[in-house]
């Protein structure tokens, strides 16, 4: 893909704009529930999702990607910052306005066993969002049948209860429910990571088909970099509550600029023995710091092979490296530069 401006996402108002979003969780202890600490799960995230676009959000556990998704949908209340949907404020919406906005933004959860009410038959589960928004029972039911069909299940299954279905089938049901209100944006929170390997591809393909059919925008949250690469147009890499790099898919995967992105990519095992034998892997030292005690300066510096004194003092701002490619690093790697070599040249 070239950097031809026509292939870049359309300008104008994005479907979703997230600005400086912060979500803190107080840590309480003791008899009086005194606040003894703060976990900053999301700390100042800014993102945009455009029409008919998939933004992949990747990161390891504790990076805040799931909290980000839920805060955008106001399933959690943001501490500060703003979320706007097509120019309208979500964070500032009144309850009745929020109800209306929910028509446009939906979510699919990771765990297909926890995300469906075990006491409701499948057709009712899918019809529920429509009933909430005032559809008649008959119309909602008819629409649910269409949706069951649209996600590749037999409409006969409508009377069955969730426990009868396998993980992949349940995930299809969850997707049908998310589609019921004809939203423009769906937040997919690790939608395939709980599924059997042989079933993941079915769901990925289904999501792609539905996106084309209904012109959907996706925020695809995942830890699996291969799946994200497959499905995303643009990708944001998160580390400890911050976006460290965001760019179009090709730039992220072919020219990763942040040391964390490079190490993450090099750690992903590839199902090819020859390739694996010849790979040079960057094995990061140490563990993920706890989100309750983030390092000063750059949050990645404790594990970064090229961190300097400056990194521990000054927090890097996210800045534009190339058209549509933003990085938060004092020493971003230029295209073709390898972290291993840079680290070696610096004598580490």
């Amino acid at each position, binding site marked *: 893909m070239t950097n031809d401006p026509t292939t870049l996402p359309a300008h104008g108002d994005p479907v979703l704009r997230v600005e400086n979003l912060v979500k803190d969780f107080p840590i309480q202890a003791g008899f009086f529930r005194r606040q003894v600490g703060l976990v900053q799960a999301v700390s100042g995230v800014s993102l945009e999702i455009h029409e008919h676009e998939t933004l992949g959000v990747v990161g390891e556990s504790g990076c805040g990607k799931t909290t980000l998704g839920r805060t955008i949908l106001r399933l959690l209340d943001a501490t500060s910052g703003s979320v706007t949907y097509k120019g309208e404020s979500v964070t500032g919406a009144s309850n009745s306005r929020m109800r209306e906005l929910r028509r446009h933004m939906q979510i699919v959860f990771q765990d297909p066993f926890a995300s469906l009410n075990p006491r409701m038959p499948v057709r009712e589960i899918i019809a529920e969002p429509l009933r909430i928004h005032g559809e008649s029972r008959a119309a909602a039911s008819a629409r649910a049948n269409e949706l069951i069909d649209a996600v590749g299940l037999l409409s006969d299954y409508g009377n069955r209860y969730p426990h009868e279905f*396998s993980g992949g089938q349940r995930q299809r049901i969850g997707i049908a429910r998310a589609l019921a209100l004809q939203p423009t944006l769906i937040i997919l929170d690790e939608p395939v990571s709980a599924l059997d390997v042989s079933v993941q591809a*079915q769901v990925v393909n289904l999501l792609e088909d539905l996106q084309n059919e209904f012109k959907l925008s996706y925020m695809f949250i995942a830890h699996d970099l291969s799946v994200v690469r497959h499905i995303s147009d643009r990708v944001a890499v998160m580390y400890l509550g911050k976006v460290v790099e965001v760019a179009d898919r090709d730039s992220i995967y072919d020219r990763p600029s942040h040391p964390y992105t490079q*190490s993450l990519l090099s750690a992903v095992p590839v199902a090819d023995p020859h390739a694996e034998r010849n790979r040079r892997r960057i094995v990061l030292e140490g563990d993920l710091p706890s989100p309750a005690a983030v390092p000063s300066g750059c949050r990645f510096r404790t594990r970064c092979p090229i961190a300097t004194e400056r990194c521990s003092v000054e927090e890097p701002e996210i800045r534009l490296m190339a058209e549509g490619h933003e990085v938060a690093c004092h020493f971003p790697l230029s295209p073709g530069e390898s972290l291993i070599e840079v680290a070696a040249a610096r004598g580490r």
Partner: protein
Amino acid sequence: MTEPVISFDDLSVSFPTDDGMVRAVRNVSFDVEPGEVMAVVGESGSGKSVTALAAMRLHPGSAEITGEIRFGGRDLLGIGEKEMRRVRGNGIAMIFQDPMTALNPVMKVGAQIAEMVLIHDDVSKKEAWTRAADLLESVGVPEPGRRVKQYPHEFSGGMRQRAMIAMAIANGPDLLIADEPTTALDVTIQAQVLEVMKTAQEATGAAILLITHDLGVVAGIADRVVVMYGGRVFESGSADQVFYRSQNPYTRGLMSSIPRLDAPKGERLIPIPGTPPNVLNPPSGCAFGPRCTFASDSCHESHAELMSVGFDGTHRSRCHKLAELPDLFAAAETR
């Protein structure tokens, strides 16, 4: 030819559940050679974990088990519990998926490793603790002297898994069984732990029986691979044979359904239709039959035998259409 470290011979494991009998493992046979990494790959319900647990005799107590598991010249299924305890840890050691539940939360990590040493070795307590610290160091835990005195909750996920590996190699076992050792870990930590397992193996010369669903992990570490589905071995051979010259529709389907970091972008995935079989109500005939694009009537009637493919007998596959497969694969490719 050398003696295998462990041989599974016609192993079958069934256990009763509230909803009926589950035949989790069906007539599984394979060997693990000394010093090699053998990976058992499969999805949920494939029987891979039950096979591994049976080797440690840690399968559910109500299980009915037939066949043989030969280790060190005897059948592990035929020996007494006392003798089996000596095998565990000393001969065969296990690394579990979730180190948080596998480590005792109220015991110091050092004490747990030292205990392993003491059970099987007649050394002083002090000596055992020193060994514990050495072991932690050998698996890359920094400041082992301080770390031995900590409790598991003070360790991060990756560090806990390292402590598990340290416990496992404490008595220089001949075989390490690792049940999804990296599944619960983040990618960057996963890379560290795999590295440690490789180093530990080189240091002790133990063979590894790796149970996993992750083909990427298998490609990185395994010498040989057994692919299981519906409780049966579907294919076995060297990593190269299974990855590059697979003679099984299920293995092929699995390979082409996973998105890969090095695949051309924008290519559509080719999924396997359907769902892994319900263990309580498995299909008649070939377990993969209902999902197989090549299946015909015979596939729904009976299951095929595991047959040798190629000339040296190292590559085996189970499929009714073994003879036609090269043509079928070629035809599917051009479609």
